[in-house]
């Protein structure tokens, strides 16, 4: 009897386990990471944002030293987010889960650039650029999206 119950429950568990994990990732792990990012962003904003401009240096001060700085991050949506995104794309319109995810990765990449510059002795970053690439993986002859890579780069300058 016990064995019969085991053989009914076990396959269900095998199928459900990844989805339970995915749920934990989506609703507990990801919000926690986003909260941490928000704290880091606020700390940076208090020290004064180093990402100053997307063009030439604004102040006419003499620049002593320059260096190219890079920061990147690869983010992937969870299974649940892919499922929700798939359902939403049937109806069209904004796909909220992906908007949030890409926004999150872009903020993360920019924050890493800020932290890298804050750790060095440069004053600010000029000419900041953002670049997005979709990472794919071939599975059964089909290209599946595994994640999105965001690269933030710019020129760090020292007055």
């Amino acid at each position, binding site marked *: 009897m016990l064995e019969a119950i085991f053989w009914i429950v076990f396959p269900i568990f095998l199928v459900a386990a990844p989805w339970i994990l995915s749920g934990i990732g989506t609703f507990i792990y990801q919000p926690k990471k986003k909260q941490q990012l928000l704290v880091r962003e606020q700390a940076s904003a208090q020290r004064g944002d180093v990402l100053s401009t997307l063009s030439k240096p604004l102040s006419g001060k003499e620049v002593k030293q*320059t260096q190219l700085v890079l920061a990147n991050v690869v983010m992937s949506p969870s299974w649940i987010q892919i499922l929700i995104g798939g359902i939403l794309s049937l109806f069209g319109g904004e796909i909220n889960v992906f908007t949030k995810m890409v926004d999150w990765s872009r903020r993360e990449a920019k924050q890493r650039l800020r932290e890298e510059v804050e750790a060095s002795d440069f004053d600010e970053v000029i000419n900041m650029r953002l670049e997005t690439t979709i990472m794919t993986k071939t599975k059964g002859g089909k290209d599946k999206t595994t994640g999105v890579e965001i690269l933030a780069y710019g020129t760090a300058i020292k007055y």
Partner: protein
Amino acid sequence: MQPQVNIPFSNTETIPGVTIVQSMGVVTGSTVRAKNVFKDIGAGLKNMVGGELRAYTELLQESRNEALYRMLVDAQARGANAVVNVRFATSSVAGGAAELLAYGTAVVIQ
């Protein structure tokens, strides 16, 4: 860690504070790289949960540095002593491999 080429490079049109004397043409550097199969499996599992895939972040960082290094070597071979207007392009070749391209204008500065 890879060897360093000590010439200034930036993604602005000019390097602030110096004068460009001569342009030496466009220089490029590229590389295609992949992580090992175990890291790929790990990333596949992390995919379930969502969030950052650290193995791939690392992979792209390493390869981008390598592409930059090759670009600088190319610039040095042409007799330039700086690179301006550096741009990056990324494309993912199938199977967890990524192609990174760095390109820019090699110049001679005073």
